[in-house]
């Protein structure tokens, strides 16, 4: 009978619900009486679970009674989960933090422990790197940076050899090599036009010397120059020399496809970040790859190749963590060479701590390029403190350029217009 079965479902449903309610809800973090402390570390790197386990095993071996639990959340939702987690109980003890502008909502809301006041020794980390973990409002340090990134051009050694090419020393050589490759039916550069966050990276990678790299950064910060400066506009125009060598219908090529073009050896070069090395090596261990820095384009303000980079992530402490002392201990350890070396070896990331040398030869080379001639990835580092961000504006602009809808003047004008809404030079 209907009523009876309806009743049946209802009872079942409520019974199940009751059961769920009766299941003990363990509190997630802390609980460190007697047996030892558990420190929960949150991160957005779901792909690094195994590596972090290894790293934290080393820490646990040296610290009796402490267990470190690594809990990653899918990167796209991480910021929401972290901000709700930090503002209520059941949050992390230690959390991976975004750098520069991405850090501000958290540090300004007072959710994080200021580290310099807590005796966290960051002397082994260069000052500019620490800048990525500082709060704009009070200048305090809220995280220990542990991963930096650098931009280089990866290339397939086998394809280069086949076509009689070598690492280009001049811009003209680079262009000639690209042409040779294209004529031979090989896609010169594997690039995504669809996931446009990559495009501003390419702009700095290829043309930073054209607008003057670090000196330009200073000029913009002080208000002496802005993004409509002729050299900067020219640097955007320079991109138009390279785009003919991008894959066909590049705006339809997404990030994963671009990566696959390179790893499946259908493209010769991949301009990208140090964060992609681990993936390339894993996808195609037989791929013989090398890296080089882009030679300065003609008319460059600074006549040498530069390697753009930035601080990617740091680890900070939740100000409401019940295990603050142990958490701070862990974070102190994260500023040491021991941790840094493991980050470099296991995670294949560039670690900024002094004395850390990557044992992977390619990573070594990238690190060297970066030390030789660094320049900031300008729009990410300095222009994410407000809305709209510099990277978003440039990404949209360059994508329009790929579609033939915008030129260098329009792009730089839009960039300036957007940033001028919140950026105060000289601040």
């Amino acid at each position, binding site marked *: 009978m209907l009523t009876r079965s309806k009743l049946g479902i209802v009872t079942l449903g409520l019974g199940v619900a009751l059961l769920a309610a009766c299941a003990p809800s363990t509190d997630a973090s802390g609980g460190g009486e007697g047996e030892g402390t558990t420190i929960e570390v949150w991160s957005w790197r779901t792909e690094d679970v195994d590596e972090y386990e290894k790293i934290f095993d080393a820490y646990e071996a040296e610290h009796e009674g402490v267990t470190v639990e690594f809990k990653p959340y899918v990167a796209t939702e991480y910021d929401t989960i972290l901000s*709700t987690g930090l503002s209520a109980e059941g949050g992390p003890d230690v959390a991976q933090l975004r750098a520069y502008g991405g850090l*501000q909502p958290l540090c*300004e809301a*007072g959710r994080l422990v200021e580290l310099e006041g807590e005796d966290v020794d960051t002397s082994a980390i260069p000052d500019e790197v620490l800048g990525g973990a500082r709060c704009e409002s009070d200048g305090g340090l809220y995280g220990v940076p542990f991963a930096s990134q650098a931009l280089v051009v990866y290339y397939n050694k086998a394809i280069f050899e086949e076509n009689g090419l070598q690492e280009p020393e001049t811009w003209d050589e680079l262009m000639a090599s690209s042409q040779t490759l294209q004529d031979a039916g090989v896609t010169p550069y594997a690039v995504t*036009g669809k996931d446009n966050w990559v495009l501003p990276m390419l702009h700095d990678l290829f043309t930073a010397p054209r607008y003057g790299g670090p000196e330009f950064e200073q000029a913009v910060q002080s208000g002496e120059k802005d993004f409509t400066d002729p050299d900067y506009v020219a640097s955007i125009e320079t991109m138009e020399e390279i785009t003919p060598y991008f894959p066909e219908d590049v705006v*339809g090529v997404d990030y994963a*496809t671009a990566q696959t073009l390179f790893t499946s050896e259908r493209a010769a070069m991949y301009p990208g970040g140090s964060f992609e090395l681990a993936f390339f090596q894993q996808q195609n261990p037989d791929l013989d790859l090398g890296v080089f820095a882009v030679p300065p384009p003609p008319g460059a303000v600074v006549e040498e190749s530069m390697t753009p980079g930035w601080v990617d992530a740091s680890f900070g402490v939740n100000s409401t963590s019940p295990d603050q002392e142990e958490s701070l201990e862990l974070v102190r350890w994260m500023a040491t060479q021991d941790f840094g070396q493991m980050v470099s070896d296991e995670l294949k990331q560039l670690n900024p701590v002094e004395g850390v040398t990557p044992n992977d030869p390619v990573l070594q080379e990238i690190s060297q390029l970066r030390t030789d001639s660094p320049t900031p990835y300008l729009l990410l580092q300095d222009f994410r403190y407000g809305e*709209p961000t510099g990277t978003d504006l440039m990404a*949209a602009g360059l994508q329009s350029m790929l579609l033939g809808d915008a030129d260098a003047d329009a792009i730089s004008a839009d960039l300036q217009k957007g940033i001028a809404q919140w950026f105060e030079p000289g601040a």
Partner: protein
Amino acid sequence: MTARRGRGATTRRPAPPFPVLAAFLVPALVLYSVFVVYPLFSALQYSLFEWTGTVRRSFVGADNFVALFTTFPLDEQLLSAFGHNVVFFLGTMLIQNTLGLTFAVLLYKRHITRRVFQTLFTLPYLVSPLVVGYLWVLMLRPQFGVLNAMFDAVGLESMSQPWLGDPGTALPVVILINAWQWLGFPMLLFGAALASIPEEYEAAARVDGASTWQAFSRITLPLLTPAIGTVTVLTFIGSFNLFALAYAVGGSKGDPAGAIDVLGLVFYRTAFEGGVNAIGVSSALAVLMFVFIFGVALVANRFLRRREAELS
């Protein structure tokens, strides 16, 4: 049309005694008010304040709303996103709902194969929209995608386009993907509505000499008005709240080049990729979206009820 006396769908009985009425309404009211209305109301009210992260600061009145329309490039994106939502709604009504009705009609007369087809057509609905988006992106890749590979294999190279990479084709393709996924929904609704219309009505008309099409359009179709109205209103709401599919296909920016940027994505960007005052600005957008969608849905609902009354 035969008289519909006694069907009185709109004349209603005076209410039963209050305790009985309350018994019917209270459980849903309480659950809904506590867990949906109150939080939504709070969220909307957030729009009147300025925020640093998750900490509320001062009351700023309409400032957040003004920011929506005066910040570059947000103002342009807002307008173009709204346009895309409109196109999406019209496209979906045209494709998804007419196909859904067609299939529902074709199927409700079949008894053996109906459930087979119903299940097959509705299967895509069972997969999360986010994953549907990712799946289709994977299949429509220009270089490594299944669809283009198939076209090439049968010699139709001209069809081997970057479907989701060309700003001109991206939105129509997304409409099609969405229709593919949700076809089951109007189909089932119409199917259920058709199921409650006795076959005698149409059969009677045919005995009277009407053709199948006339019988359908003059008798069955008007009786489907409540269902059509429901589907339309729900499609409207769904079209303007669209998020998961657009996100999966175009990322948070509605790529390529913002061709599939919709209000839901703009909200997502301002809320989760916004700066320090993300909660303030995104709540303001939410308020505007709510006022618009709710306003139109309410008016549409009233209008449809009146039409139902007229037709009965």
